[in-house]
């Protein structure tokens, strides 16, 4: 693996499988009375969040703590955009504190890339979501969840049909998922109104459809993206009702899914907008499972970036204390 995780494109198929396999091993920790491994004792992980995201932050925090790392939460609201402390000064501060890994969430696309390539910090950079660019650990947890539910928890996702529905244009989750899931062999279809698809989407490694209904029966998984209401005032679609009617997942559409198909959502959900409450709470929904898997996958990422030893060299089957 590379030293940083900035984009899902940084992961080769072998890298991605390594993360998923490692995550599967580490997931066992969650079932123990003491949910902790000594692996990263003495290492410092900084959660650098320029944007509010309690869910992602606590997921990384739990992951780092289960590996016994020291965790520093740095909530740097207001970047240089709002004349707060600059990205550079924040980075230099963290470097002075000796951060081994910096988990960064930022409203500007490419900010983690800047941190990793500027020479301001020496540690590994993990992109925890940057602007409308990428969110690679979300894609990893989604791939993990898909594999658990559709592929018996091992191997890749060859031939699995995954449909991602909604605001692709502004979605870092969609970008990372298209890259990672296609790397893992899945057959990805994006569904959105044309206004919410980026220029050039036809060059992405996926299919594109403006209609949800024909895609549903063939999907092994449907991932609904959050659609923000302000997109309506920007004329991306006429009304919330029209959006729900054309692109929302309700009971009727869910009934067209095949028996084993699952429903996913990266959260937070707009119940009643892109997904109805009934669907979100149905037995097909793996949304809560996604959250749990997020911790395992992030443990694997931190372990692989900071531990330095791949499981191939340091077997982690059997008792986990060894890693």
């Amino acid at each position, binding site marked *: 693996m590379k030293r940083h995780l900035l984009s899902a494109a940084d992961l080769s198929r072998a890298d991605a499988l390594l993360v998923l396999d490692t995550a599967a091993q580490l997931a066992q920790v969650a079932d123990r009375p003491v949910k902790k491994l000594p692996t990263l004792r003495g290492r410092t992980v900084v959660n650098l969040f320029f944007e509010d995201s309690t869910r992602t932050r606590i997921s990384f925090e739990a992951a780092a703590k289960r590996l016994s790392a020291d965790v520093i939460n740095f909530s740097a609201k207001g970047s240089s*955009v709002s004349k707060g402390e600059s*990205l550079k000064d924040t980075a230099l501060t963290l470097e002075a504190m000796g951060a081994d890994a910096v988990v960064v969430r930022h409203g500007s696309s*490419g900010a983690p890339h*800047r941190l990793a*390539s500027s020479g301001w910090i020496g540690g590994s950079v993990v992109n925890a979501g940057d602007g*409308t*660019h990428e969110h690679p650990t979300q894609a990893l947890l989604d791939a993990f969840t898909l594999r658990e539910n559709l592929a018996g928890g091992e191997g890749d996702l060859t031939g699995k049909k995954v449909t991602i529905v909604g605001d692709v244009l502004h979605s870092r989750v969609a*970008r990372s998922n298209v890259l990672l899931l296609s790397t893992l062999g899945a057959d990805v279809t994006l569904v959105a109104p044309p206004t919410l698809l980026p220029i050039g*989407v036809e060059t992405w490694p996926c299919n594109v459809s403006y209609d949800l209904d024909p895609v549903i029966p063939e999907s092994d998984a449907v991932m609904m993206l959050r659609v923000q209401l302000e997109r309506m005032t920007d004329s991306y679609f006429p009304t919330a009702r029209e959006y729900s009617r054309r692109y929302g997942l309700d009971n009727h559409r869910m009934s067209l899914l095949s028996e084993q198909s699952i429903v996913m959502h990266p959260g937070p959900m707009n119940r009643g907008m892109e997904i109805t409450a009934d669907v979100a709470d149905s037995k097909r929904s793996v949304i809560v499972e996604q959250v749990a898997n997020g911790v395992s996958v992030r443990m694997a990422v931190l372990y692989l970036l900071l531990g330095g030893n791949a499981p191939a060299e340091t077997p982690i089957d059997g008792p986990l204390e060894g890693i």
Partner: protein
Amino acid sequence: MPRIVVTGASPLGGAAVDIVIDGDRIVEVVGGGKADTGGARTIDADGLVALPGFVDLHTHLREPGREDAETVESGTRAAALGGFTCVHAMANTEPVADTAGVVEQVWRLGKEAEWCEVRPVGAVTVGLAGQHMAELGAMAASAAQVRLFSDDGKCVDDAVIMRRALEYVKAFDGAIAQHAQEPRLTEGAQMNEGVLSGTLGLRGWPAVAEEAIIARDVLLTQHVDSRLHVCHVSTAGSVELIRWAKSKGINVTAEVTPHHLLLTDELARSYDPHFKVNPPLRTQEDVLALREGLADGTIDAVATDHAPHPVEDKECEWSAAAFGMLGLETAFSVVVESMVNTGLLDWVGVADRMSRRPAQIGRVKGQGGSIAAGEPAHLTLVDPAATWTVRPTELASLSRNTPYRERVLPGRVVHTIYAGNPTVTDGTAERTR
């Protein structure tokens, strides 16, 4: 001031001559080695190409207001090092150059600095706000003799204001230099809209936002029979539109920046804001169309859009960074790489696009002439065979935001002579006055 004899120079790439300068004029051009050098200061230009001093239609000198980024003094010194003997200072200063007072101040600072002629560009609208026409007549009649008006940085997007401005400047042979950018289509825009902007998650600046304004403006210009200049043309479609307008006899001229002749949007992959500029770097297809347009004369001039910014405005995340890049000291070399070494322009063409035509567009008397006896002595002597490595800290500009850091560029400005004064000798700015 002693006479100056430039020996062995090759004017526009022709046979070697000696050029004799007395005062601010060229007094004699004779075959190489034939001039009388007695008592004169000689400048050895053996192997160098002599070109008329370059005229930049688009320079941000940042004074008044942002003297931390550039001053008239530092910017014009950089201009001299880049081979320029005249620059047009853009109006988006603080305060905005929208009154006779501000344009005269900039003009006077240029005169005092003496590195090159400074021609202020006046704002079209008060405060660049696009609402009310500025006192264009007062600026035209001032000591600065303003002939080009631009809200550069902002588009005069209101069609009525644009129409009125185009009409109004006819009274004093002015022209509107339009920054063609439809504002609604480019809200929050960060880079060229295309496959790459979608991948990088950066808000797109579509080509149509430039082309729609150019199409409207050439039609307005035709309608009111005025004169339009299009700033920093960046797309293949814009070249097509301007070619069409010229074929219809519409009085439109256009400029292209050196960076749009050489660099593409691929550089945004680095998320390094040194490649963030407005209009944005476009695709290779656009680059080739711009080169072709400049070669066939559809595009009249190379203009730098020299845009200095302090370090902190570039040493940050992409979306927080300022738009713009330095250009004065690298313009000639970039033209050599993109136009001369590719066989698209010869030295006559370089002189035309970097000196003669921009001087005409700016109505700059005494610049952009030929290298002949009786002409004003504005000369740039260049070494086409030289190469150099761009080092931001070695540039004369107060700012360092060059996109060519550590890049090796061909062609080097060796000497610049402005109004008979050597401002640059052996690549070094000199102050002998």
